[in-house]
């Protein structure tokens, strides 16, 4: 039983990582109704920017602030300059652009900073939060920060007019223009926010998994799985989904003999397929009903 408990805890530990990035995934989904494959690579790029600034001797919290702002600007820029010509293009064209962005940012990061593994500091430290509980201070901080971002997102979409405009712009872009909403600017805001959240998740994840250009590669797949399990329209669901994916991954790879560490990734993919088959809106997502 103690062994089981420790496996669940280790699942929660990796679940925290997935949940962080899943928030960015949900954010961009709310703004453009697509999954952005380049999300993870953008986060890695932001994390390297932070690493560079830390190397230059800037204090951690200043770096965090600067990187969040820069990432927001980068997201905004990508929508306004790169995605803009594709606004009326078919979905497939958009997906090709996402894959292009993925490759560009992945290569760019490797080109600028090399492929050596770098250590990334945590301002919270890795000591245990409470003796014998098995949760480190950094992990606890990740959970707390995810909860804060989650609350901000929830309030943003629930209570602010810009949040409503963003949901409207996704629901019906043409009608949004007709009621005076600048859809392009709203979408750019969504890209900016998603990139900023991605940057925070990169800074939180890097101390745990070490910084290298492919850091987010598999994490993004788990984060997608988490977001799909919880529901792409629900930030809270996505965080919970991230934890579920982490725990399921940990338990299955421990107790199902065939699946060792090597076959962990298919667990996430299987989860995605099962959820899409039986509960397409996710556990907590809103089901869109439309009468035609």
């Amino acid at each position, binding site marked *: 039983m103690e062994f089981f408990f420790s496996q669940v805890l280790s699942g929660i530990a990796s679940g925290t990582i997935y949940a962080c990035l899943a928030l960015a995934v949900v954010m961009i989904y709310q703004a453009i109704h697509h999954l952005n494959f380049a999300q993870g690579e953008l986060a890695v790029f932001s994390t390297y920017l932070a690493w560079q600034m830390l190397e230059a001797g800037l204090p951690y919290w200043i770096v965090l602030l600067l990187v969040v702002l820069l990432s927001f600007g980068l997201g905004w820029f990508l929508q306004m300059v790169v995605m803009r010509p594709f606004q009326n293009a078919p979905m497939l064209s958009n997906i090709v652009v996402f894959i292009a962005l993925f490759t560009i940012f992945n290569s760019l990061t490797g080109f600028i900073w090399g492929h050596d593994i770098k250590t990334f500091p945590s301002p919270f430290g890795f000591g245990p939060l409470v003796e014998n509980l098995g949760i480190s201070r950094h992990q606890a901080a990740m959970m707390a920060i995810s909860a804060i971002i989650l609350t901000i997102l929830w309030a943003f979409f629930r209570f602010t*007019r810009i949040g*409503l*405009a963003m*949901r*409207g712009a*996704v*629901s*019906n872009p*043409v*009608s*949004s*223009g*007709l*009621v*005076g*909403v*600048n*859809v392009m600017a709203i979408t750019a805001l969504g890209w900016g926010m998603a990139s900023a959240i991605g940057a925070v998740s990169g800074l939180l994840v890097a101390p745990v998994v070490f910084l290298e250009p492919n850091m987010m590669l598999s994490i993004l797949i788990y984060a997608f799985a988490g977001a799909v399990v919880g529901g792409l329209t629900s930030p809270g669901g996505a965080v919970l989904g991230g934890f579920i994916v982490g725990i399921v991954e940990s338990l299955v790879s421990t107790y199902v003999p065939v699946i060792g560490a090597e076959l962990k990734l298919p667990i996430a993919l299987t989860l995605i397929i099962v959820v899409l088959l039986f509960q397409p809106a996710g556990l907590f997502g*809103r089901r*869109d*009903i*439309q*009468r035609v």
Partner: protein
Amino acid sequence: MTSLLKISDLTAAYGTLTVLHSVALEMQAGEIIALLGANGAGKTSTLRAICGMIDRKGTIDFKGKPTSHLRTEAIARLGVSHVPDGRGTFSSLTVEENLQMGAMTRRSRREILEDINTWFERFPRLKERRRQQAGTLSGGEQQMLAIARAMMLRPDLLLLDEPSFGLAPQVTEQIFRTLADLRNSQGTSMLIVEQNANLALEIADHAYVIETGSIVMGGPAATVMADDAVRASYLGY
């Protein structure tokens, strides 16, 4: 006095396909104008051109200001509201959120709330369903919602694209009663595109007839209604 809307030499195209040829049209504040024509004549395109939803050339002056170079959201901010073809429902938002979307250009939260309540009184069906996803409403309820949403902008000009489309006769009648009432109580000017020419001419002051992208006739509603060709083509008697 400057006209509310003055269109001249308006040409519009979808890509290489020109759908409007030198359209001219004028309306005064407080008027209801009916735009009649067969399928594909260019009625919907005229409304879309006014709102900047398609590429257009020519002069469109709204309240004396040229608008033919402006983007859709800027034209909306000037006070042009459009109930589009297909009703334009925000189907994943609730009924109440749809109405709030309509008031996006306005500032005062208190006035917006008051207006929402006024519309809930006018259409009690919408009030009953205020927290329901708008995509689940029936066609008639969605048309009511579309008109209420468009009016939430407090527009000077309301464009309506086939408000009777796909609706039961009683619902259509209710919609047109509401439109007539809005004009009488608030003086809202309207440009109505309608297949059901009889209904549209009943509440219109003036009417224009459009054929293959050009205005072929225009005048007081009574005159247009009395025209033999119009009667044969659009009124069916």
